[in-house]
């Protein structure tokens, strides 16, 4: 199992080299790998259809109990076949479509990375592994959308897709984390048995919301649908592969995978069903309004994704089966149409359907493929799309909550999809010949093989649904429902409500196609999103971000040191002041001071010195004032029984003053650098901070200190430290480590002083030489 994934990554490393060697046929050669994997997965059909789940486990993170486990059931099988099958065709196609492109080698590499990662998503059992692969698909999608990186539109679209899906991915991570914490297990398969416990947990709703955010962004559900049409900047094979058949279905996959554990609750039903319904309708409607071939297809894909999500929201047995059928059908017809659209673009030089017509004669094979695929998309018999639409209506009609409303929305969405199918298949090929930028003719075999094969497969499955119903659809549905399920698919069920709805849908669809021009503008009201929708919000956010960031920068990062300081002081005073006000009763703080007059004098001298430092205009005078403060403090130490401190302070103070004098004696007088207003503002801030400190000291000293160490030092100083000066004993014995550190700090400072001095000398020397 892991080999299947790793082989993709391995080949992606070698792909550019392979391409360089075989150039012309590189697509065919490289496609051998996905083809081989397709065959391998096909060989597993028998086992999986028999109800077996293939499990593989590798140690990854043993100490914490995370293992790299893989879990391959019917759901994985269906996806794996789509991923590798379409992957094969797309790589072959790309070989022709991008022939001669200088970056083709890299293109293969990224597509292979994507393929391997997507396989990882669908067969991972470990939540974290799932997430890792999930993000890798987002990144490879980013690189592929931005493939034509010299185009600004390409880059913007790539970034948009990455931000939306990558962001959703991170939400998903958070959700999976919660899920893991709730259930205590990181294996998805272990979650299934604990659905009840999970859904009863108080973190269920947050976890659900986060996981849905991940799934909805990836699968382009409203309101995150806007990135998908943008992603059409990517080359056609990428659109066909990632943005239609596989990657965008990862969200659907995730919902299907987790629905046994998370699904069935009211929250799930409400959120998933409504998102699906809205997306389905909106996607169809927007598809119908486009003229760009790929955008039509993109929006109709959005509609299909909405349908899939809707079905999973309903969650009944028939709905899940419907989802599985639609998944398969969509991969066939939409893959085919995208590849065909790429072919048209390649041959005619345009993607605008109003700029082409009558191409049926020059491109008959493409016409054939397009017609078949479009018929399937429109849901006409005898194609597989018809079967899937029948099942869809059956599921909506049986919906437990609002069958009528859901069915109506489904019909409305499908009406537009029918019309869109017409736009894609009829407009370019029939009608009058329209001159196109390039002279069109049928492309090389690589270009039409894929569309024809896929469209043909759609017809084949439609005619003989039995080939898939038991082996693919039933196992997939069983995996989602977590119980044995049988599926019977057929084209003809007799005349029943579903058939009637199908007929109505097609009828209205034809009408919508015919009267498109006339109806178009009147129905704009159905899409309020174009003016102030999510895409607009995204755009505003992306544009606004740098503007906002610049504004923040200019406020926070002025480059003025003193403003930085002021910020720090204000924040601190604010926080401390707030706590002070809210927590402390100021009543007990004040008491009559027990003071001697000479102490007051010393205190006054210190304060006067401090004031002098701030006010003096001459440098020397302010240094003198600073000295006064220092000596005053030394006196305080003398008065309050700290002779060692006093001596040190005297000595150091003298040295400091000398140093100051030495450095500044030749400097000019202070210039007045700040305005009066600034000075007043600073003074207010400083005084506030000072007041805060005073209050703090008053609170500290309101009660006697319960020193825990002093008695110990007093008792042990003489016997252990052999000294009578307790301060000294503490410094050199009990706290020798600090003192050692202190000496080191001092020596480092000395090195600093020395280095600065020496550098200056060195520099002077350099200048002379």
């Amino acid at each position, binding site marked *: 199992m892991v080999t299947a994934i790793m082989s993709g990554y391995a080949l992606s490393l070698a792909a550019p080299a392979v391409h360089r060697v075989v150039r012309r046929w590189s697509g065919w050669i490289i496609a051998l790998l996905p083809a081989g994997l397709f065959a391998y997965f096909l060989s597993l059909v028998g086992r999986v259809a028999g109800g077996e789940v293939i499990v593989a486990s590798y140690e990854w993170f043993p100490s914490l109990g995370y293992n790299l486990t893989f879990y391959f059931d019917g759901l994985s099988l269906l996806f794996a076949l789509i991923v590798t099958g379409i992957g094969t065709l797309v790589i072959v196609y790309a070989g022709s479509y991008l022939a001669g492109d200088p970056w083709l080698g890299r293109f293969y590499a990224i597509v292979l990375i994507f393929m391997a990662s997507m396989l990882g998503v669908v067969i991972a059992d470990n939540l974290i592994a799932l997430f890792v692969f999930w993000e890798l698909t987002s990144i490879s999608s980013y690189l592929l959308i931005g493939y034509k990186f010299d185009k600004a539109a390409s880059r913007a679209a790539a970034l948009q897709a990455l931000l939306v899906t990558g962001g959703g991915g991170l939400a998903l991570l958070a959700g999976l984390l919660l899920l893991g914490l709730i259930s205590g297990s990181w294996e998805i398969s272990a979650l299934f048995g604990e659905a009840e416990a999970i859904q009863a947990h108080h973190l269920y709703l947050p976890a659900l919301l986060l996981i849905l955010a991940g799934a909805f962004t990836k699968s382009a559900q409203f309101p995150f649908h806007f990135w998908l049409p943008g992603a059409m900047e990517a080359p056609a094979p990428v659109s066909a592969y990632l943005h239609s058949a596989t990657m965008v279905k990862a969200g659907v996959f995730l919902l299907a995978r987790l629905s046994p554990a998370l699904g069935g609750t009211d929250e799930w039903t409400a959120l998933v069903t409504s998102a699906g319904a809205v997306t389905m309708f909106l996607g169809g409607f927007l598809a119908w309004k486009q003229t760009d071939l790929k955008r039509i297809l993109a929006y109709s894909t959005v509609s299909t994704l909405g349908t899939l999500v809707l079905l999973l929201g309903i969650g009944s047995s028939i709905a899940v089966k419907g989802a599985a059928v639609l998944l398969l059908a969509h991969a066939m017809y939409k893959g085919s149409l995208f590849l065909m659209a790429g072919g048209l673009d390649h041959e005619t030089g345009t993607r605008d359907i109003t700029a082409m017509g009558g191409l049926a004669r020059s491109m008959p094979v493409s016409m054939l493929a397009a017609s078949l695929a479009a018929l399937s998309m429109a849901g006409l018999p005898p194609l597989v799309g018809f079967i899937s639409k029948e099942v869809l209506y059956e599921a909506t009609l049986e919906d437990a909550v609002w069958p009528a409303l859901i069915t109506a929305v489904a019909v409305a969405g499908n009406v537009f999809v029918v019309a869109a199918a017409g736009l894609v298949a009829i407009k370019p090929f029939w009608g009058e010949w329209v001159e196109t930028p390039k002279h069109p003719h049928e492309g090389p075999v690589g270009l039409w093989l894929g569309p024809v094969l896929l469209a043909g497969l759609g017809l084949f499955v439609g005619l003989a649904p039995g080939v898939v119903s038991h082996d693919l659809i039933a196992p997939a549905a069983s995996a989602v429902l977590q119980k044995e399920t049988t599926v019977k698919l057929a084209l003809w069920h007799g005349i029943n409500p579903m058939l009637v709805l199908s007929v109505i849908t097609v009828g209205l669809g034809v009408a919508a196609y015919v009267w498109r021009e006339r109806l178009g503008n009147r129905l704009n009201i159905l899409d309020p999103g174009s003016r102030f929708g999510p895409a607009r919000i995204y755009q505003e956010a992306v544009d606004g971000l740098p503007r906002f960031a610049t504004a923040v920068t200019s406020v926070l990062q002025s*480059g*003025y040191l*003193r403003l930085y300081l002021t910020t720090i*002081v204000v924040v601190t005073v604010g926080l401390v002041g707030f706590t002070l006000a809210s927590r402390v009763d100021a009543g007990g703080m*004040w*008491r009559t*001071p027990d*003071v001697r007059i000479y*102490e007051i004098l010393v*205190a006054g001298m*210190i*304060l006067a010195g*401090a004031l002098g*430092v701030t006010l003096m205009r001459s440098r020397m005078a*302010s240094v003198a004032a*600073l000295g006064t403060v*220092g000596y005053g*403090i030394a006196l305080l*130490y003398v*008065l*309050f*029984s*700290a002779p*060692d*401190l006093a001596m*040190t302070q005297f000595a*150091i103070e003298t040295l400091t003053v000398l*140093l*100051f004098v030495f*450095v500044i004696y030749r400097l000019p007088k202070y*210039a007045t650098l700040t305005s009066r207003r600034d000075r007043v503002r*600073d003074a207010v801030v*400083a*005084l506030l901070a*000072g*007041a805060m*400190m005073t*209050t703090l*000291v*008053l609170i500290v000293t309101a009660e006697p200190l319960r*020193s825990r*160490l002093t008695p110990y030092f*007093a008792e042990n*100083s*003489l016997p252990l430290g052999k*000294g009578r*000066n*307790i*301060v000294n004993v*503490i410094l050199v014995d009990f706290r020798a480590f*600090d*003192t050692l550190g202190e000496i080191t700090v*001092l020596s480092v*400072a*000395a090195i*600093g*002083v020395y280095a*600065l001095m020496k*550098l*200056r000398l060195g520099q002077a020397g350099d200048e002379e030489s």
Partner: protein
Amino acid sequence: MEVVLAFVIGGLYAAGLFMMMRRSMVKVIMGLALLGYASNLLIFTVGRLTRGSSPLIPADAAQPAAPFADPLPQALILTAIVIGFGVQAFALVLFKRTYQSVGTDDLDSIRATEKS
């Protein structure tokens, strides 16, 4: 006396902070020195004041006579004073170097990193 010292400490902080917000580098360094005094005094006061009985053990006793000043904060302050001096000296030399290469005492005039 703690009450009075509380105001002295507050005053020193206020003066120190005010100086640190000036544009002249010399003033900023002086502000730093004032903050250093203030913090030493803070530790000193927090450890409580005792008049006239140093934490010294008399020659004829094994323990100091109570009440004696708390030796622990004094030891801490000694550390702080010494380190403070190292920092101060470094600050002055750094300033001198900067002054020589920039030619001004004004902090606002050195915003080279902001311009680019």
